[in-house]
């Protein structure tokens, strides 16, 4: 490269791009990357938090808005304990006087949660299912979220667990867990006749499964409740619940065209949909209880 002394030579070199070509590598390394313009600016939390005055102002504003909404709602409510409140006479009277006739269940609570307010119970079952799915996403062991060191640690734990003979626990679980599970099934099936129902019976069944798993290891439970059956039971029960209840929802809030036989109150096969709904809720709760235990101890169902 000859020296560029005159202005004309420099200009010529500039026009030809000699400098740029000679230092192309440096130029490529140093140049600014063209950045796409963000037309939709997403608000970044760090930026807002760094402005302390604005941040505290926004906090107070949001809190004030919610407090105002709640205060307005509370001020619209009837006064507490007023004798003429609808909650004090109409609802209670209706449930107690027409409960057996309308739901067919002797246990008023079962009639309430699975007939009058079945949609609410459906939501609760969904909450349980969602909770177990969240735990599953966070805690389930698979090849992506586990390192070799953790794998080794778990293998050591399992080897220690296999050597440890829990003879007292195993004898206890051998005699107690069938009785516990049987009692849980009784509570579920008798939910419309006596105190109990899906939630309490399901947690008893789940407790029996946990005792069995603690004594004999997860492999023995996996023979009949692995991840596949767990998913099928949970989803199947939720869909069955949805199908059963949407029948009466879509045929009208007042059970227009509702022809499910209620049977004779007091018999085991009575109360319309309450018995199958109890079974669905019980299975979901039992699976959820056992699922939590298995995920927190072993990381897999």
């Amino acid at each position, binding site marked *: 490269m000859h020296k560029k002394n005159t202005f004309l030579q420099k200009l010529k070199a500039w026009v030809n791009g000699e400098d740029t070509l000679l230092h192309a590598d440096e130029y490529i390394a140093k140049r600014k990357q063209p950045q796409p313009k963000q037309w939709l600016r997403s608000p970044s939390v760090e930026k807002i938090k760094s402005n302390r005055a604005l941040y505290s102002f926004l906090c107070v504003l949001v809190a004030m808005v919610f407090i105002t909404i709640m205060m307005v709602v509370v001020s619209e409510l009837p006064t507490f304990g007023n004798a003429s409140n609808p909650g004090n006479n109409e609802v209670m009277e209706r449930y107690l006087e027409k409960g057996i006739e309308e739901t067919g269940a002797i246990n008023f609570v079962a009639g309430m949660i699975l007939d009058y307010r079945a949609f609410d119970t459906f939501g609760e079952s969904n909450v349980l299912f969602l909770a177990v799915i969240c735990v599953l996403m966070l805690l389930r062991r698979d090849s992506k979220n586990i390192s070799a060191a953790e794998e080794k640690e778990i293998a050591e734990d399992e080897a220690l667990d296999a050597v440890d003979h829990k003879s007292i626990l195993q004898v206890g679980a051998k*005699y*107690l867990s069938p009785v516990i599970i049987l009692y849980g099934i009784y509570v579920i099936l008798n939910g419309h006749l006596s105190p109990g129902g899906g939630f309490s019976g399901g947690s008893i069944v789940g407790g029996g499964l946990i005792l069995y798993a603690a004594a004999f290891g997860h492999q023995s439970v996996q023979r009949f409740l692995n991840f596949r059956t767990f998913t099928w039971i949970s989803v199947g029960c939720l869909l069955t619940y949805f199908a059963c209840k949407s029948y009466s929802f879509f045929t009208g809030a007042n059970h227009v065209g509702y022809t499910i036989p209620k049977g004779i109150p007091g018999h085991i096969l009575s109360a319309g949909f309450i018995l199958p709904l109890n079974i669905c809720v019980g299975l979901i709760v039992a699976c959820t209880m056992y699922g939590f235990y298995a995920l927190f101890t072993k990381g897999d169902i």
Partner: protein
Amino acid sequence: MREVFAIIFIVAGVLVFVIALLGIYRLKYVMNRMHAAAMGDTLGLGLIALGLLMMGQDIFHIGKYILVILFFWMSSPIASHMIGKVEMLTNKDYDERVHGK
């Protein structure tokens, strides 16, 4: 006569429960507390169920109480045993704490 015996048993059971409750609050180490808690579950509940059993109306009534006692006398000692085992396996200062060595 039946009622008198039943009252004696139930009051004794409640006393055992009171002692167990005091023990849980008073004792500091897990082994001591476990002893107090397990005493309430076995002796206290057994005495109360025995007192109620004497007031039983028919054979099913009495049978249920016997089943309750059996269930608790099987499950409570096993649970206590497991707690003690875990404490023994995981506490490094176990010998020092228990035997004073």
